[in-house]
């Protein structure tokens, strides 16, 4: 197996990831890539609470993730890699090429962001970042839970609040 899901989700570890995706994928590990979380013992302890027994949780800065990527790809267990924002995923793909697909799972409302889906709000910079990911070879789709239809990036960026 390998990393089965590369996901952008500003809630990082939470129910949709652990239960919604983690159970059907039968994940053995989750990689949380975030420079701030990787530098905070308190934040790491908090997120450890959210992972069920039997699932390993690895914390990494973007630099550490790029260095550890091959080992995670070679892992015999299915895994999930998470970033909290588009820019972190973009930096990671630049440092560790070969990410085949990126799942936009949750980027919530904040000032300056426009609603694309009820769980995806984007600034113009974030839209450019997602386009750059796709142009770099990753298939970018929006999908909050496995039972939802994966929405291609083009459709996502054409979407408005009504969808």
């Amino acid at each position, binding site marked *: 197996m390998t990393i089965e899901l590369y996901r952008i989700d*500003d*809630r*990082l*570890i*939470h*129910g949709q990831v*652990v*239960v919604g995706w983690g159970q059907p994928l039968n994940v053995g590990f989750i990689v949380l890539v975030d420079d701030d979380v990787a530098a905070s013992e*308190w934040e790491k302890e*908090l*997120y450890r*609470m*959210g*992972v*069920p027994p039997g699932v390993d949780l690895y914390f990494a800065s973007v630099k550490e993730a790029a260095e550890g990527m091959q080992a995670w790809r070679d892992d015999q267990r299915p895994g999930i890699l998470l970033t*909290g924002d588009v820019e972190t995923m973009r930096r990671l793909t630049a440092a560790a090429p070969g990410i085949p697909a990126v799942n936009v799972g*949750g*980027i*919530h*409302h*904040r000032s300056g962001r426009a609603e694309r889906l*009820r*769980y995806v709000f984007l600034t113009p910079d974030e839209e450019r970042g997602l386009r750059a990911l796709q142009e770099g070879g990753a298939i970018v789709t929006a999908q909050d839970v496995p039972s939802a239809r994966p929405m291609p990036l083009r459709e996502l960026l054409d979407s408005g609040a009504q969808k």
Partner: protein
Amino acid sequence: MSDTPVAIVLGHGRVAEGLVSAVERITGITDRFVALSNEGLGTNEIQELLRERMEATGARVVFTDLPAGSCNFAACRLLRLRPDIVVVTGVNLPALLHFATSPQPAAGEGEEPAAFKVAEEAAERGATSMRFMRGKPA
């Protein structure tokens, strides 16, 4: 009942609204809880919503639905900033019923709020209320 402190119930989707509504239906008590949802909110926004509502209501007890969820993480982050509050996670209806119906007299100078003790009891009540039952042939 009006001097009884309110508590926040924070959950996914409409779970908080539903639980609070059920408490009201069962007990007739309508002034004990404020229901909040994480719907459409990022981590920071959930925490800010919770902080704002706690300040506005004076609530010092937070019930969240899922230990591994964004609501509970937001409450835990707030707990770090505000050691004068308590958080109960994994909330269910028996827990809220206990909290709603237990007397919570005002605390004296330097005393811990009675609501903290009742919240702890509510956590235990909620946990022990779960049962597995199987039918038996007649």
